């Protein structure tokens, strides 16, 4: 076991992990941040997407120890300071961009990164960008609508 420290959603945290412990496992099991989901074992579903130093990363592709000293953000850190839903989250609710909610944290984290880098993405750009995030419930229609609406609002 080794000690690891990082900042998660603005708070410093420290933990003891095995070398093989994944970042997603550390977040879920040690920090009890269970909004980051595990949907696969081949790094292809995107349910585990979090931000590490401002970049969207699949939390299951990274060891907890690799995040030493990093600034990590999870779905639990995406609401406004007063607890209200952030723009992207609110757009997903407004446009019914989620059903079972399992893919949703990953979708929101991915959308946040997309809109940071491309404030006015085309439909095709959004669809291509989300190709690493699988949703089984929505047929993607309302996810795309939600992201378009958030983009419009964020300007």
């Amino acid at each position, binding site marked *: 076991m080794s000690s690891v420290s990082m900042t998660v959603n603005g708070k410093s945290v420290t933990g003891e992990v*095995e070398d*093989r412990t994944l970042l997603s496992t550390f977040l*879920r*099991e040690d920090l*009890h*941040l*269970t*909004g*980051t*989901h*595990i*949907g*696969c*074992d*081949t790094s*292809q*579903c995107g*349910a585990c997407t979090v931000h590490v130093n401002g970049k969207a990363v699949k939390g299951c592709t990274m060891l907890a120890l690799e995040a030493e000293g990093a600034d990590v953000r*999870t*779905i*639990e850190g*995406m*609401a406004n300071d007063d607890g209200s*839903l952030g723009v992207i*989250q609110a757009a*997903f*609710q*407004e446009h*019914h961009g*989620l*059903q*079972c*909610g*399992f*893919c*949703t*944290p990953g979708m*929101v984290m991915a959308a946040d990164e997309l809109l940071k880098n491309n404030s006015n993405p085309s*439909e*095709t750009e*959004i*669809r*291509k960008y*989300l*190709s690493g*995030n*699988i*949703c*089984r*419930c*929505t*047929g*993607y*229609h*309302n*996810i*795309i609508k939600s992201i378009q609406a958030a983009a419009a609002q964020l300007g």
Partner: protein
Amino acid sequence: MPKDNGIGASPKRREDVRFLTGRGRYVDDIKLQNQCFAVFARSQVAHGIIKSIDTSEAEGMPGVLAVFTGEDFTEVGGNPAGWLIHSRDGEPMKEPKRPVLAHGKVRHVGDAYAAVIAETYEQAVEAAEAIDADIDEQDAIVDMAAALANSDNLVHDEIETNQCFDWGWIEDNRAATDEAIKNAPHVTTLELINNRLIPNAMEPRASTADYNPGTGHYTLYTTSQNPHLTRLLISAFVMGIPENKLTIIAPDVGGGFGSKIFHYGEEALVLAASKKLGRPVRWTASRWESFLTDAHGRDHRTTIELATDKEGNFLAFRTSTLANVGAYLSNFSTVTPTILHGTVIAGNYTVPLTYVNVKAVFTNTAPVDAYRGAGRPEATFSVERVIDKCARELGIDPIEIRRKNFIKKEQFPFLTAAGLEYDSGDYHALMDKLEEMADFDGFEARKAESAKRGLLRGLGINTYVEACGLAPSNLAGILGSRVGLYESATVRVNATGNISVMTGSHSHGQGHETVFPQIVADMLGMSADDIDIVHGDTSKIPFGMGTYGSRSMAVGGSAIVRATEKIIEKATKIAAHMMEAGDGDIEFNDGVFSVVGTDKTVTFPEVAFKAYIPHDYPIDKLEPGLEETAFYDPGNFTYPSGAYACEVEIDPDTGKVTICSFSAADDVGNVINPMIVEGQIQGGLGQGIGQALVENCVYDENGQLLSGSYMDYTMPRADDMPFFNVDQSCLTPCTHNPLGAKGCGEAGAIGSPPTVINAVVDALSHLGVTHVDMPASPARVWAAIQAAK
């Protein structure tokens, strides 16, 4: 105008806030004090005799608390099939035992033969790998026709055949159907495959058991669409745990699509392990386990014939199907290819004769069971593909041939040749609406434009009708169901006037927490915000048959209506007492009771308060309190229907199919929440298009699953999908439930696969292509083009 959050409104979903902020609570999010972990040892061969299992090394490894094998479960029962199907000769189907852990034989890759419980997950994984199983590999039985031909090599030796049943529907119509086909002026024949699918709910299955040695009570947190049904199966059939000693909680569940209806052996294992150790035992499937062990879907080989006269009037449908049930009978595996398939083979049509034959076959593959649509997509695909082929052969427009044979609006209720009485529908109106939505007139111009870019454009049309909202229990019983198919609801009005509704339906994406309060709010003249839904916990809800078969609104919602009616009835009596009037003189409108012809009123919250503080109360006639339960058993199935159109472009050089547009006009009966209904239709379309274009479960001849991960099993992604043009304005209410609702969960997945394939074939028909099997992958489409050249 609907109230902001009453029937017909689309309030934002209240469940979304927790899902969007990471506060959902799925089974794997639940961590109990002192928990330990279960990991399964699973067969790597498809078929083998278990000679011995040596667990001694695993037992001595660090952290290991217990090891189980099939030997530990010989005294408990098997996981049963929920429907008893009889063969054409009257013999009951073959029902080999499905044990908790494989015993004697392993029958598919992934079949669990042992389980390790350890302090940590990693320790359990390592110990499971150290279990030494001596398994004598046998030839795998994979191909259905070969399985039936070969009686020397059996999946289950004790039943002496690989055939589960040979079912005919309706057997009495067989001779007449044969005769009609023999004498028909035109017969179109089509052989097709309904491709095997892996459900892939994004949340893998998970089960955590917590046995309390002090009370003898078990609690099981599990990924279930129907916790009461799971409890019933565990109590009555598998483990004999008394129902009053077993609580099942299905909290937030990350999609089901059928795969989480069923009881699985892992649930029984963690219960047994928790009892043995006196500690909570947690198990969560890795995705590879989901691929190998979740019940798969579809997997039919069908020959369908359509007899017509020269004008294209349908005279008879006849089908012959081999249906794979896999290695064991999963709970709904026998009803899916039979009742849910054969009874809708007449489709939307007045065809006078139909006959369906289904042979169900055991193979060394994962169990196959209900998957979104369950039997009805298979029937619709067969019927609508052969109609399209027939139209082409006869030179009749595909829309025209359908219109010509539709059941007309004025013919409802209509008893079909396949034996169901459809209560309502208007298929011509749906087709009219579709023509308006899909701009058929502009197709030729779009096709020419595609051709300029070197692409082949096709237009596919399809209609469907499904039977859902299962079911009248007495009819289900006659057809072979071993359970009832009603739904329950309890409406509890609290003393301060707000309400908790306990429902036996289970929401795993359908939005029940938002939509059910809309009904009660309308009936009681309240704000939906003061009404909460409780679901997914057997200790809080009277009973429930759960959510599948598009039944939650039609059956579960109707139960809520009935319970709320009882509330109004009792509250009326209390109000009459409060206003010193006769019960018959009271009117209830928009939350207010009044005495007819006077200005006396009391509000619903005042009545509720009186019910709980009954100081001045008709105690000789009425009990205090305001809580009512109803069990609703429907009078018939419900029959949603729709008309779909799809345009595709095909690149002839690569075979790649791109969906350019998709229009869907659905009649789902009355709509309670339009936003949620649209979302359900869109999701179903996504899954159906996935089946049509990309998804395919493949086993090799040794029974190895070749499509066992997201690298090999293609899931539809955002860039495979178009925006959908959906409409639910052509509605005919269901005539036999109080909401007039028919159901919308499966529609899209039923109607879309034939629409897409009809479009693909349309694009290629000038080359002589008459059929393309699903998925219409680039390789397959390219090969079809080459073969036709």
